[in-house]
């Protein structure tokens, strides 16, 4: 038997899926992937996925945005071409700083939000003209699909999955 064979087990209920994932994990089988039509809470933990670090990246992107805002306001208003506008102080960045708070805030949010979303798209490989990779169109409607690699244990896996309430079990050759 070739090793690129996988089992696709389809479920039509999120609670049954959760129990199935736990059961398969208890039997020490590797779950390659689960495709869901909506987020199932606790599924990532049950599958043993590592927590995502996107929030941490957002924090650093925000710091970057704040630094850009500070540099931009300092360079344009203080260093490059200081002007007396309405008698507002432009002697040093610090005395002029209160007027820059809105810019600093907006650029922090701008950088954090956009760069985090771009990171998400890159990490999850979603972008325009990307081809979808869910193996069954029903997984964006009301079905959940569990993918398990087969290593000479096809019958054992089939028997196990049959007890978990799968509505359909298919053996697929993955290319």
């Amino acid at each position, binding site marked *: 038997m070739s090793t690129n064979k996988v089992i696709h087990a389809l479920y039509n209920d999120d609670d049954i899926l959760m129990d199935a994932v736990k059961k398969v994990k208890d039997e020490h089988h590797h779950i390659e992937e689960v495709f*869901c*039509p909506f987020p199932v809470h606790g599924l990532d933990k049950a599958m043993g996925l590592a927590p995502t670090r996107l929030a941490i990246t957002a924090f650093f992107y925000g710091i970057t945005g704040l630094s850009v805002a500070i540099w931009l306001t300092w360079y344009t208003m203080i260093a490059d071409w200081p002007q007396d506008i309405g008698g507002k102080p432009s002697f040093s960045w610090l005395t002029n700083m209160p007027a820059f708070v809105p810019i600093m805030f907006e650029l922090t*949010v701008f950088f954090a939000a956009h760069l985090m979303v771009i990171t998400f798209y890159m990490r999850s490989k979603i972008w325009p003209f990307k081809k979808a990779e869910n193996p069954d169109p029903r997984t964006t*409607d009301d079905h959940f699909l569990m993918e398990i690699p087969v290593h000479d244990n096809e019958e054992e896996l089939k028997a196990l999955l049959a007890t978990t309430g799968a509505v359909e079990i298919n053996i697929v050759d993955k290319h």
Partner: protein
Amino acid sequence: MSSHYESSYREPLILGEKSYHDITEDIARPIEGKANKNWYIAFYISLAAMLWGFGCIFYTVGTGIGVWGLNKNIGWAWDITNFVWWVGIGHAGTLISAVLLLFRQKWRMAINRSAEAMTIFAVFQAGLFPIIHMGRPWNGYWVLPIPNQFGSLWVNFNSPLLWDVFAISTYLSVSLVFWWTGLLPDFATIRDRAVKPFQKKIYALLSFGWSGRAKDWQRFEEVSLVLAGLATPLVLSVHTIVSMDFATSVNPGWHSTIFPPYFVAGAIFSGFAMVQTLLGVMRKVTNMEAYITRLHVEYMNIVIILTGGIVAVAYATEFFIAWYTGSPYENYTYLSLGAEAGAYGWAFWSLMIFNIIIPQILWIKKLRRSFIVSFLVSIAINIGMWFERFDIIAIVLSKGQLPSTWWRFEPTFVDVGIFIGTIGFFFVLFLLYARTFPVIPTAEIKTILKSSGENFKKQRAENNEH
């Protein structure tokens, strides 16, 4: 079932016997079906209004700002009124999707997609006004801090008008990204159901190849939460900064420290009113009665009562302070006895009646749960909030500190035409959206079906699980 627990005493958010598949069917139906006659009638009326507005814009740009009703005293009036009005309307969308997400309010799921769409379309309209008012809109990019080939001058970061540029563009782009990221799984649903090849191609492109892996969902939820956390202060900052356009000036009536919170409350007030107006019609037209229920309408009305109350207190404060200063100039601000008795008395009373008096009927539970009453009140608030901005701008500017310069503002047909044009443009976008986008977040609403669906609640009640 513990993860899906919600007390059966709480009213259901999804009515009828629904399964996950039913939800997909219900939300895909308006996209896959054909538009009816009413849709076409509404679309062509909006399109005509939009084209009329574009004509007026070309006339303005071709001839000059002189075709507006402005004069030497009133340097901006109708345009900035409309700008603030549209930005205010654009506040409900991100408030619903961000603030209510942080507070874990499940009812937001039925309305957040359309409210965000409304936000984005409203901010488009708002953005048009300052760009047209530049007179030479092709030089609009001069507001950006670009290295200066134009003579060693940078933009002025001390100016609230420039803060506005940064606030509005950040708000528009972040709202757009928030909205689109939430749309990806729902576009994927439409893509995987599509039978026509062209439709499949389009939705495959729009969905960015979303596949719904467990890891994707984990990231999706984290990104939504962080975006909500970022968008919450952003929403509050935008109208704060808009209010600073006025509050940092030295005009009596504008130079007011309560403007930021008062403007933010007013923005949420008008934004929710516009959501009520749009959804009151949309739930019927797209058959979403099972998802946008009386309960949703009531919750939105409660937000309207709260923010409307804040606005009323702000008016009272302004009125009192104007009188209490004893300054004769303050007697001509938009909330003063002078304004009430003056040439703009009708505008003063329109503000009071539409914004303060009419919304009070929502205190009666029966009325705030009525679709038709909510719709009518929301129209009144839309009008009232327009008058608020008109009063703040036109009344204050009409009577400056030098009585010999007192003048009045009278809009020309171009002023009115551009405003009507933006309303048309807004509805053109919204009507197209309602026919091509999943108007309810399909994936998200499925997550609350078991906890808040009517049939699941009934089942639990029968099993005595309260």
